[in-house]
């Protein structure tokens, strides 16, 4: 049965949340993530924004127990605009914090470095829900 456009749009929106390169399972000793960057995209903060918008929902979907905060700061002056850092902070249960510099980096590069840092495992295909555009209606 062919579904109407409204439903196919929703299906692709749901698939975008649960499927993709960000479908990774983080180790148990990670207790939190913190992403910090500017409101302005200039000076290498676009990758961080794209990482937040496209990849972070996928990571959150497969790690529902880990709180993920996004803090964006407003750059008031030209100097601030150039100097505010973009970082991804990983918190561990023993109080340790590891930070990743994500300035001037593409969102896919950020994800690769994040996976290397945390040793996250890819989620098996069979564990990811997949919504098909052509459903078998009984």
């Amino acid at each position, binding site marked *: 049965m062919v*579904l109407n456009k409204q*439903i196919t749009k*929703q*299906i692709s*929106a*749901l698939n975008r*949340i*649960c499927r993709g390169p960000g479908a990774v399972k983080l180790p148990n000793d990670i207790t939190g993530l913190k*992403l910090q960057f500017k409101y302005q995209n200039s000076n290498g903060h676009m990758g961080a924004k794209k990482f*937040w918008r496209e990849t*972070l*929902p*996928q990571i*959150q*979907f497969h790690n*529902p127990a880990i709180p*993920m*905060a*996004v803090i964006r700061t407003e750059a008031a002056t030209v100097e601030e605009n150039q100097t505010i850092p973009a970082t991804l902070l990983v918190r561990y249960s023993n109080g340790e914090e590891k930070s990743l510099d994500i300035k001037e980096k593409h969102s896919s590069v950020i994800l690769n470095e994040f996976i290397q840092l945390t040793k996250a495992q890819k989620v098996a295909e069979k564990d990811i*829900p997949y*919504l*098909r555009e052509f*459903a078998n*209606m*009984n």
Partner: protein
Amino acid sequence: MVSFTSSIRYNTIKRSSLLAGYNSVSSRPAIILPLTRSYAAPAQTNRRAIEGQVSKELAKKKEAARMMKLRAETKTYTNTPLYFDVPTALRFIRASEVGSPVNQTTINMTFRLVAEKGTAMLQGSIPLPKPLRQTKICVFTSDERLAKAAKEAGAHLAGSTEVIEAVKKGEIDFELAFATPDVMGQLGPIARALGPKGLMPNAKRGTVTDAATILEQVREQSGAVTYKQKADTLSVTVGRVNFTDAELARNILTISQHIKNQSKTVKSKKPVLIGKTILSSLRSPGIVISV
């Protein structure tokens, strides 16, 4: 056809008016005859009336068919790829709200109600086990024991003279007010301040009652969420993303049970049914859940 009759009428009127003065001298009844011919219109209006009846019947049939389809859909609405159980739905919602300010992440539940046209709309309030916010309630009473009990039950303000004095100064820090009958005499001076805001206690609205009813109302209303049906949908706020799964599940259960009970009390020929129910938040796609 129309132009023909109108031309006849025009001619006859013209001629008859011209000849009006001569009628007494030499009567010409033959000229008046075409007038009767110009009354051919009733046949047309009849046809129109019949056509109107037919289209009305068709519309009725179409409406009945639409209602049949909607009624059937209330049993099969979960048969869609967008259907998930509540925990998975919440996982999707939390993922799509990642990194957003908490106060912008309210989760809504939208019911589709299937009812005959002209049926009374559902509206009211539901006391939630885990409310989003406490409604600020004020209780006007001279009974100190009641004031203490009301504050314990969730009232923001309670008392008589000190609360009334504060309102006189212009400090109105509440959204709902109750009063016991004994302080109603003292409320006269502040009626002008409270009245326009709809906060003046009134026996007709049930906000001037005895102590037991006030306590019960305070308990119910302090953590209640209000809802109002619009057209054939009804949307109720469930909670926020930072609530736990158990808290949200309890709220969802309370709301769906309340709406089910409420829909049974509506007076109409056929029962009001609950159709497609969707759980969604500001940034998430709508996810179908079963209630």
